[in-house]
């Protein structure tokens, strides 16, 4: 499994655990709304991912993220920037 896949799987795992749907998968076009994620869910996801990768997620930058594909790409970019 590549490092990128590993990030994708980790993000999926964290997101699905928080929205309590561990048994489903989601597509790149799936939105937070599709997952019934509310603001507290999203904040929990961000904190969990910051802890998992020791990164800082900029909430302003996240405004441009429209779906889960974009979210996963964003996390990959932050992890890459960290080196």
């Amino acid at each position, binding site marked *: 499994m590549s490092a990128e896949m590993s990030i994708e799987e980790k993000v999926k795992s964290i997101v699905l655990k*928080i929205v*309590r749907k561990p048994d489903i998968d989601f597509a790149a076009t799936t939105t937070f709304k599709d997952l*019934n994620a*509310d*603001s*507290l869910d*999203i*904040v*929990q996801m*961000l*904190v969990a991912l910051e802890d998992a990768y020791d990164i800082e997620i900029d*909430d302003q930058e996240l405004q441009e993220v429209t779906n889960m594909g974009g979210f996963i790409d964003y996390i990959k970019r932050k992890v890459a920037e960290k080196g």
Partner: protein
Amino acid sequence: MKIAVDAMGGDYAPEEVVKGVVIAAKEYDVGIILVGPQARVAEELAKYDCSGVAIEIVDTDEYLVEGEHPAYALRQKRKASILVATKLVKEGKADAVVGAGPTGGVVGSALQVLGTVEGISRPVVGGAFLGFAPKTVMMDLGGNVDCRPDQLLDFAIVGTVYAQKMLNIQNPTVALLSVGAEEGKGNEIVKASYSLLQKSGLNFIGNVEGYDIPTGRANVVICDGFVGNILVKFCESLGETICRWFEDKVKEKLPESDVKEIVDGLLLATNLVSASGGGPLWAVDGVACVAHGRSRFNEIAGVIGQAKLAVKLDLVGSLKAELVAARSKLNMPLSES
């Protein structure tokens, strides 16, 4: 024992919070860590005789204010007083945290920093709120304004544990708050929750309506925090309004002491939450207590007392054990939740 208190929480912070803290430190013999702007908090503390009590200040300039979106405000204000206070519990520097609001900020901090006990996704605010029905517990009273059916099931389990542990009711009856008693009455969330609760193995008796709450028809009444918060505030205001009306009507017909006794009794019967000042956030993996936003010093002190009791009784440990037992009975292992 040390309790971390958000000095800037609530409508009357920091004045009433600091005053309540000084009283609680003396009355409950607990150490207090006040979290807030050092100079402002110290100025308030200087007004009181603090000899013989252990009160320290942890400095932070950031705090939440009413009107902000609590979840996002906590992301922007990484050193918000409630967040810093909650982290003291996580770091083992305090045994419990107390905050008087915004309620969403206390809930969000608890969720971010302490997390929830395994198997429950969200902290729950609840308890007996009507003196007329002291054996009826409402969950949720404002912690979660938008809820999924599985969360309402969580509330039912927590409420069942609450009624068993705190009210000594062996097999509490559980009901969903709806707009009709029949199955099929209610919004989509209530209808979906009904079938989930039916299969849960809890002592589910179906739907109850608003007028069933004061009569104590069920021991545990489940609703989302949006409805619960409106309900509890409505009852508080109704009680106060009736008392004002009553005082006006009888002030020249009954002795003042009799009027006061009746009014005090009616206020307690309609407003247990104010009498207790608040209580623990259930399902948090640590002791976090939320005080009413309108709390004055005596309510703040009362909630600090409750925090001490929650630590002393190991309510979190008891809840974890009961949840495992309850889920096991329901054939719903925690790992599947």
